[in-house]
């Protein structure tokens, strides 16, 4: 097992890519601290992860032999994050891997000048500031042990623009900047920081993903039509599976990638290659 004995924190673990990552990590022998907001955020026009979904992720991981600590925490609440990480330390004694996965895709679907102040704020607060908050709490623990891997789940929208997704693209571009700068901060201290950039991910029913559906809704398109258009634009002619992203995360978490830091790894079927 490639992550035997490692403790991994995954944010946004209730469903989607977060759940896929948690499952992949537990299969590789890791123990898990799973965080999710477990509730809706004002201004986000679609239902977010629930406590029931988080419990389900935890159960699936336990069935694979992992010790799991699951906690509800809003990525925008620094004090709450601190309290959860204290618990993680008491339970597991250390943190080896942090996956900053929590993120939202909407409010979107309008031109940059049409975005309201509140819509702009919530997008950056969750997608960009949330990753920074977790890093500021967990980073020192890793630095003290001269060991650790931080994985920031960005997006192809961190590399290219998408029409009518200015806030989302700004937050995901920002995440790549955060990744590169933090990687330099931590490199002498043997803590690695990398970004993952998935392309459009299929809404897998097992992990209860709904990103594609929300994008379609933001663009006022039927899901099937949006999916069809998107698949045609993918060089590999298929959407990304959550498991594809999880496997890349396993590699970045493991010692196999011990010289990889500050890198941006795309899992996008070649979308950004052209």
């Amino acid at each position: 097992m490639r992550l035997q004995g490692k403790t991994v924190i995954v944010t946004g673990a209730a469903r989607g890519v977060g759940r896929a990552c948690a499952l992949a990590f537990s299969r590789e022998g890791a123990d898990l601290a799973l965080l999710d907001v477990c509730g809706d955020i004002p201004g986000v026009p679609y239902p977010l992860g629930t406590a029931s979904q988080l419990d389900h992720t935890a159960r699936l991981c336990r069935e694979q032999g992992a010790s799991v600590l699951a906690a509800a925490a809003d990525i925008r609440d620094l004090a709450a994050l601190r309290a959860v990480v204290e618990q993680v330390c008491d339970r597991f004694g250390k943190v080896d891997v942090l996956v900053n996965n929590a993120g939202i895709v909407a409010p979107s679907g309008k031109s940059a000048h049409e975005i309201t102040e509140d819509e702009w704020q919530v997008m950056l607060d969750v997608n960009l500031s949330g990753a920074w908050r977790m890093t500021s709490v967990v980073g020192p623990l890793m630095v003290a042990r001269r060991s650790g891997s931080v994985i920031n789940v960005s997006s192809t929208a961190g590399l290219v623009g998408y029409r009518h997704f200015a806030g989302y693209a700004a937050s995901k571009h920002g995440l790549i900047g955060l990744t590169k700068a933090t990687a330099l901060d931590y490199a002498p201290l043997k803590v690695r920081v990398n970004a993952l950039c998935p392309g459009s991910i299929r809404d897998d029913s097992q992990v209860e993903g709904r990103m594609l559906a929300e994008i379609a809704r933001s663009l006022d398109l039927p899901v099937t039509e949006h999916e069809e258009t998107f698949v045609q634009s993918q060089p590999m002619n298929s959407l990304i599976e959550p498991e594809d992203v999880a496997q890349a995360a396993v590699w970045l978490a493991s010692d196999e990638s011990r010289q990889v830091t500050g890198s941006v790894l795309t899992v996008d079927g070649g979308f950004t290659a052209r």
Partner: protein
Amino acid sequence: MVSISEQDAFAALTPARRTVVHSGERIPDSDRKAPGAVCHALSVRLADGLPADGPQVLARRFADRAAALLPAAGTAAAFRGAARLWTERVPCRSDESAAQRWRARELVRPVVAHRDAPVRGVLLHYADGVAELVVVAHRAALGAAALRGFVAELLGGAPPRADREACAARTAGGGRRYDAARHAADIAECHPGAQLDWGLGRPHDPDVPETALLPLPAGHPEGDTESWAAALGVVLARYEGVGRPVLAALVTDTDDGASVVPVEGVALVPVAVDGANTLGTLDKQVRAAVAAGPAWYTEELRREVEAAGGDPAGIAGAGLVFADLDPAADLPGAASAEYLPFQLPPFPVTVSVVRDAAGNRMLRCDFSPRKLSAGIADQFLRHVCRVHGVLLEVPDTPVSDVRLLDEDELDHLDALGRPGPAESFVPQRIDAAIAAIAASRPDAVAVRFEDHQVSYGELDGRADRLAHALRGLGVADGDRVGVCLERSAELIVTLLAVLKAGATYVPMDPAYPRDRLSYTTVDAGLATVVTDHAEFPGGDRVRVIGTAELAELAPARCDGPPSSTTGPDDPAYVIYTSGSTGRPKGVVVPHVNVLALMAATTGEFGLGEDDTWTLFHSSAFDFSVWEIWGCLLTGGRLVVVPYWVSRSPEDFHRLLSRERVSVLSQTPSAFAQLVEVERDGADPAPVRLVVFGGEGLDPRMLLPWFDRHPETGCRVVNMYGITETTVHVTAQTVTRAEALAGSKSVGRALPGWWVRVADPEGRPLPVGVAGEIYVGGAGVASYYLNKPELTGRRFLTDPRTGERMYRSGDKGRLLPDGRLEHLGRLDSQVKLRGFRIELDEIRSVLLDDPQVTAAAVLLNRADPDDPATAQLDAFVVMDGDDTAAVRQRAARFLPEYMVPSTITALDKMPLTTNGKLDTRKLPKPAPAAVARESAVPGRRAEGAGAGGADGGAAAPGDAFEAALLEVWQEVLGVPVGPDDNFFDLGGNSLLAMRVGAALRRRGDFTVAMRDLYLRPTVRQLAAGRVG
């Protein structure tokens, strides 16, 4: 917590600062591994399953007791977190292997100082109702006894004696504040990257700790931490070959029944393994050191250790964690228990005493596979256990008398060093064996030299006749006859003639200085010397005869060799080797040894009549014994390499191809030049076997050779040997694998030879441990001529087998598969371009100079990666400052390759505190002597213009001279005048090649190697070119 200053953001702008950050100096790496190394754990399976009052009571007690461990408010807190008892419902039955893994995972989760509570606890609740409590503690908060007390109280037993008071006592103890970070840093400091060469670790393996276990034999005496520390110290001393190893002991608190004695920390224990001490005394010393309390690792301590004669670099290469705790005792309601003394081994080699589930004691070694191999770890534990037993049972045993190895191990070592029985052969004289070949194949070519060749029949016949001529001169059976001839066919015929006359040949190199030739003549008691050397220093009592004159004295016909009583066990030759006593010593080798050598190698190397060998080396160097007799005893064709060709790699390479040489014997230095020639584009030489000897081989230099000569087409064999054991002892076939690994292996002993590695007292050392190489078996020479005292010291009788053996003075280690690693000389002998040089011999010659009162000689390399820059540098304390005169005098006795390139006068020799030469404090050597100062007789070129005598760098005569001067200066790195002798300026054959290459690159001129030797000054070379 380490904070990163904002300056770091700009670190990348200044390379120097970045280096500092990356080397870890500014931000110490101290606690990287520490959490696991300073935490220990106890797991208890509850006899009655989950407590009837529910886990809540247990959890409340846990939280209360954990809170009690925290220091009072206001004190500097190492720990500040509150701890809770976690409950984990494990989805499997307690007897499944998954449950084992679950528990093991809980046992190794650390506690983080500075942040967490000092303990963490989890109650595992298995699917079958079984419950198991796992408690992990930081040693700074709870020692071993206190941890057990803590758990006992959780389970409803007596309140633990160690709580806040014990913590407070520890904080105040010994006037030093106990602080967890310091503790962690201490342990981190114990990872100095100790080499542990004896461990035979694989440096490229993953650094994942492994474990070796040795159950203590029934009846092994009970012992405490200190007794194990003493035993470990004795074993380390033997393994490291030092008198005062320092080991680290992670001393833990103890429960003496009344109170917990809070001693906890890393004690560095210098163990004075003085041979005169008894084990009992040693044990008392260790006890006193430990009782003095944890010795914090500081610079101060490092100095103390150094002052006490210990080796600070070796600090805590190995350490002891004492954990002989019966974990289940005194724990109410415990069905079974397991104690884990550390989560990560705190030392590179960590020894501990543990108990298995049944309570049986075991010696445990945790080690990194990069430092130790599993086999060595097992062996190490066996020896610690054995010494510990003796220590407790026979404490009066002197430390030096303790035996590490038992009879089985000694037998195993003997078998390892003696891989095969001798090949059978008919013992006879060398010349008789060659006569037999001559009789069966009289027309086969035996010797080729330049344009002519000698058949076996002719060789045998001519040698017979010359043997009669020698008899005519009065040579009798057993006499020693000097042979001082250049490499030629005549040399071979003469050597064989000496043997046929029943006599012993004593080879001398005509290039040796007069004094050395006359020393050899006198020491060997030579009455007859065959030489064409016009000025051979014979004297009145020596009959010096030229080869032509000897041929004239020979009968025109004869019927076989003169009759003789000399037998195969009588001496065949006496070869003089460099000696540390200041004078070369003659090694007497009988015929039968040479026949045994060929019996051992002929089959293995497939040597036979189809082979063509070279005679490359001087007959005064015993490598020539292998070349000459190895070829002729197997019916091969021997190509004698003219001296000038042997000095010119290009010419020698051409000779290899022209003569289709198949068996090539070389020193690595000479071979490097051949490889260079092929690199420059020459076609691969057609050799099928390369035999290395004469000096250590760094196999990495062979990579370009292998690129042109696949191992399937040409076998490369590295042979370790000594004149005193008849040329070769071991053989290692070198492949690309060895070359890539930079292997130091010289292979297994030849069949009939054996090797052993022993300590200074002559006791065999365990596998892996470095010591002196002893050689026994078929090759051991008879004695040193006229040196019975030295013979007695070096040629010994093996007390185990009664066989004769030679004590080599070479350092080596035996590998688990019986191969030998050669690690250089124990004394001051060095190899320079293939020559075996005893630095003490040079020093002794320098000291013979009445002006010199102290002398030191070093082998230096200006560029560590460039063998051509190696030179001998001498330092002298002398009356006046005429170092040139000192050099001139030394050159009268020493062969050219032993004359120091530089001699530097000092006011006094820098010494270390214990009176040894402190080589680090020697100044940079004075520039190489220039010709006007050196004036070495015979080497200062004749006909040198007067201009160079006092004018230093006289004006160059023409463009050719100017170009030469420029190139010499560039290659030699010193100012050059037109009359300076190339070789006096530090030039050597490798640098001569570079001069040739540099001139070729300039395109205008070339200088043949031969010309450079004949005309070693710029002016002479220029004149020679005109003429």
